[in-house]
């Protein structure tokens, strides 16, 4: 075991892992955060705390991770390179680990033009792969960028994201390999809607031996309505939603659409369990966290975990 991460333990044991996303509030209200997190407690193995997702200012991800940790959650700290340079990033890794946070997901982040601070400078001093390698070197070599040694290495379990659907499509698995070679212990994918393309991506990953070196968690987002499906397809960067799924959502009456969205999610989860190389799922139920236990129960994933 490289770290004290509980997520690492679960994945190493071979149990199908479940992580879910929890977005901090736009403000300092801890009650909102705790309410969301409470509905997930006991149902998942670890919780991702987003870092100013889609470039919208929110409570710091480290602070929120610490609060969730105190509630009994196993937090995964999401870190984007958009807002902080290498000085701040490395310092925050030290701090996060000192607070007992032992998982990190290294991301570049959505461009600031998507958010509510469009006039901001985009830092992008490092990219996500460089951040990943930096945290790995801090952990394994006990060195920061430039080679100076440190007092107390952050023993973090290190993750990265993968989007099997962005272009150029042939390049996606090469990028995954780059992340794995740079030290990604686990991968959480973008929301999967195009199952055929995802299976191709996973076949390539298995063939290249990547699933032997890293744990891949398949991303899933339940649709609340056909409107949401259409919005995600048109407006959210990096999404690939087949028309057939949108038609299926549109085909049921409005009041039944949420149930249909959950049904689709459950079917997808069941398919993920059959795909070679998938070590678990990552549920991104945006502002719908309280539905996660129901989805997991329907997918037959409840009894196995006690967090």
């Amino acid at each position, binding site marked *: 075991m490289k770290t004290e991460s509980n997520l690492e333990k679960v994945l190493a044991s071979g149990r199908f892992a479940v992580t879910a996303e929890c977005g901090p509030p736009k403000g300092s209200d801890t009650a909102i955060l705790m309410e969301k997190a409470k509905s997930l407690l006991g149902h998942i193995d670890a919780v991702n705390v987003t870092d100013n997702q889609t470039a919208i200012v929110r409570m710091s991800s480290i602070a929120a991770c610490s609060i969730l940790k105190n509630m009994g959650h196993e937090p995964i700290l999401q870190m984007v390179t958009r807002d902080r340079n290498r000085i701040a990033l490395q310092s925050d890794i030290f701090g996060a680990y000192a607070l007992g946070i032992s998982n990190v997901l290294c991301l570049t982040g959505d461009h600031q033009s998507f958010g509510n601070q469009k006039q901001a400078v985009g830092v992008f001093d490092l990219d996500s792969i460089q951040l990943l390698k930096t945290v790995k070197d801090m952990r394994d070599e006990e060195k920061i960028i430039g080679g100076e040694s440190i007092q107390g290495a952050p023993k973090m379990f290190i993750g990265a994201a993968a*989007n099997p659907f962005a*272009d150029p499509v042939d390049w996606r698995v090469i990028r995954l390999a780059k992340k794995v070679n740079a030290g990604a212990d686990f991968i959480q994918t973008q929301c999967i809607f195009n199952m055929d393309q995802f299976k191709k991506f996973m076949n390539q990953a298995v063939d290249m031996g990547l699933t032997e070196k890293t744990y891949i968690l398949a991303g899933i987002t339940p649709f609340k309505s056909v409107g949401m499906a259409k919005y995600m397809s048109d407006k959210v960067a990096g999404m690939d939603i087949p028309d057939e799924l949108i038609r299926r959502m549109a085909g049921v009456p409005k009041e039944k659409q949420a149930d249909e969205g959950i049904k689709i999610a459950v079917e997808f989860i069941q398919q993920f369990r059959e795909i070679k190389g998938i070590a678990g799922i990552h549920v991104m139920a945006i502002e719908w966290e309280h539905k996660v236990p129901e989805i997991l129960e329907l997918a037959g994933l409840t009894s196995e975990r006690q967090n």
Partner: protein
Amino acid sequence: MIVATLKEIDEIRKMIDRYDSVLVVGCDSCVAECAAGGARETMLLASALKLSYLKDHMNPTITEAVIDRQCVDDFIDQIADQVPEHDAILSLGCGAGVQALARVYSDKAIIPALNTLFIGETQSRGVWQENCLGCGSCKLGYFGAVCPVARCSKKLMNGPCGGSKGGRCEVNPEIPCGWDLIIRRLNALGELDRLTEYVPPVDWSTSHSGGPRKVVREDQQP
């Protein structure tokens, strides 16, 4: 070249209304190529200003001049005779031209008429594309002569982000994804292997992050 665009007349007026006489000075180099500050644009701006003042029943003296390069003293000296007769210079040079004028004519107010945007190329008639950020350590040789610093919205060094779609950047469909261009170029050259290696963090100290830069060459000095 340096690419710039003309400011709105209202903004220019706000900066120069306080002067009784203004020397409008164009630059016949980069900003002429991008049709923002050459001889033609200088004439048009001077006429537009005169008209705009006329409407407001104001009558400042507005004189035109054009020099070959506003960023080189030898050329800047060509307007030395006209400068004392005016309260201010309105420069259609890039940011470097404006500041060079201010250094040479140190007791004169120098006002910019342009917004200086980037180092770029004329991609086709009427289209200028940013393609260099002057990072001070050119990496084009590794990236198929497409710059990941200037042409990727996130300055990524290790490949395209998850937002690249159909050759377009996630920021805006008007922006070609720089990484899509890099991969296509290297693929066509049979050199995709250049991209599989991990690229370590960039040394930004050679860029503007290291503070304003200066090149001093003794062999070029008198």
